[in-house]
């Protein structure tokens, strides 16, 4: 009787035995045998199954940074990327078997990530932990999340915040009697009768957190800004009074009333009524004019007398001297 060869004793019915020695030398495939702790993780996964559980692992990991409570539950269950490696497995048998299977995992077998659900080592800080802490901070703080939420979530929030449309006449009453945050944020946009109150309320609620942040970081003191009281949640004031506040301050700063004029001196008429008033008395003394000098009669000139024939010189001769000849 011929004994089978050594190779045939090791793998008598290997799948690729007819192809030669190489196929016979390959180790037999080992089926996945889940460890003792695997069913516990499976149960946890089934309890906290998110609506997107049917999505692939990568897509679910992409949604982890969002501030979603479901994602937190998934983070607690899902393993760390580094911890999912076969080198850090707590169960060596499962680690050596599951990743080595090249064919797609059957439905009854848990995915490899479930096997890597072991708790991280103490003192180990994962990136997801940091993201989770940031998400918690965002949920506690009133600031809007850095990552824009899904469109559906935004619509639902806006629908919940916006009050139903109210009659226009009720808008001022609502502003005066409602919470301090109901005051308008921008004084240049007063609530006119033409604007619906629902839009005004939505506008008021939307930038409040942003203005609160700006007011907190604003270098100027808040009391200096009239509208800052709204951001701080102080006393609600109507827009008209907020506008009149600077005017009142201006009235305080305005210069004081002009001092009373000094008593006016009595007018000239009053003084004249009581006596005689002469503004300017100008006296001019004129010396008496010298008596007009007598026109010296021309000395009788015998020669002139002769020329005139009458003894008197004609007027023209005396002036022009024609009679000298």
């Amino acid at each position, binding site marked *: 009787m011929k004994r089978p060869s050594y190779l045939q004793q090791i793998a008598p019915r290997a799948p690729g035995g007819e192809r030669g020695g190489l196929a016979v030398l390959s180790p037999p495939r080992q089926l996945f045998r889940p460890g003792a702790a695997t069913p516990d993780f499976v149960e946890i996964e089934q309890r906290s199954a998110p609506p997107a559980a049917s999505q692939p692992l990568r897509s679910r990991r992409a949604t982890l940074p969002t501030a979603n409570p479901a994602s937190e539950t998934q983070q607690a269950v899902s393993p760390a990327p580094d911890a999912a490696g076969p080198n850090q497995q707590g169960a060596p048998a499962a680690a050596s078997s599951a990743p080595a299977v090249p064919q797609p995992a059957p439905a009854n077998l848990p995915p490899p990530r479930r096997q890597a659900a072991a708790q991280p080592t103490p003192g180990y800080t994962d990136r997801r932990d940091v993201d989770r802490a940031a998400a918690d901070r965002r949920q506690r703080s009133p600031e809007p999340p850095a990552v824009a939420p899904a469109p559906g979530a935004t619509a639902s929030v806006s629908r919940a915040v916006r009050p139903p449309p109210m009659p226009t006449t009720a808008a001022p009453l609502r502003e005066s009697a409602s919470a301090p945050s109901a005051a308008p944020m921008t004084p240049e946009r007063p609530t006119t009768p033409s604007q619906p109150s629902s839009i005004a309320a939505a506008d008021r609620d939307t930038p409040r957190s942003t203005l609160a942040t700006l007011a907190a970081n604003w270098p100027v003191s808040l009391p200096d800004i009239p509208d800052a009281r709204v951001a701080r949640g102080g006393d609600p004031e109507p827009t008209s009074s907020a506008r009149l506040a600077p005017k009142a301050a201006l009235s305080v700063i305005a210069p004081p009333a002009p001092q009373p004029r000094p008593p006016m001196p009595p007018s000239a*008429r009053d003084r004249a009524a009581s006596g*005689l008033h002469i503004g300017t008395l*100008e*006296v001019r003394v004129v*010396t008496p004019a010298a008596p007009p000098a007598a026109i010296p009669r021309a000395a009788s000139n015998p020669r002139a007398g002769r020329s005139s024939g009458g003894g008197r010189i004609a007027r023209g001769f005396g002036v022009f001297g024609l009679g000298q000849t």
Partner: protein
Amino acid sequence: MPDAPAVKRIDRLLIDIPGSTADYGRQVALLVAAGLANAGAVPQAGDLPMLRVTITADHRSDDAATLARRIVAATLRDLTRSP
């Protein structure tokens, strides 16, 4: 008992005496003021912003008192004629 004399007020007095000194003119002015203050024929009330009086005198022959009396007489005449 005579009534209280009316107030007479002259803001400015100009005396132009050609050929005379300032001291003589100052003396004449004081005498004119005194003569107007003591004059009894002055109107009780009136307001004259400007009053010009021109006299003809020989300051070389007349003394200051005489010249002053002539000036007061001429001023009173003009005051009575002024409305």
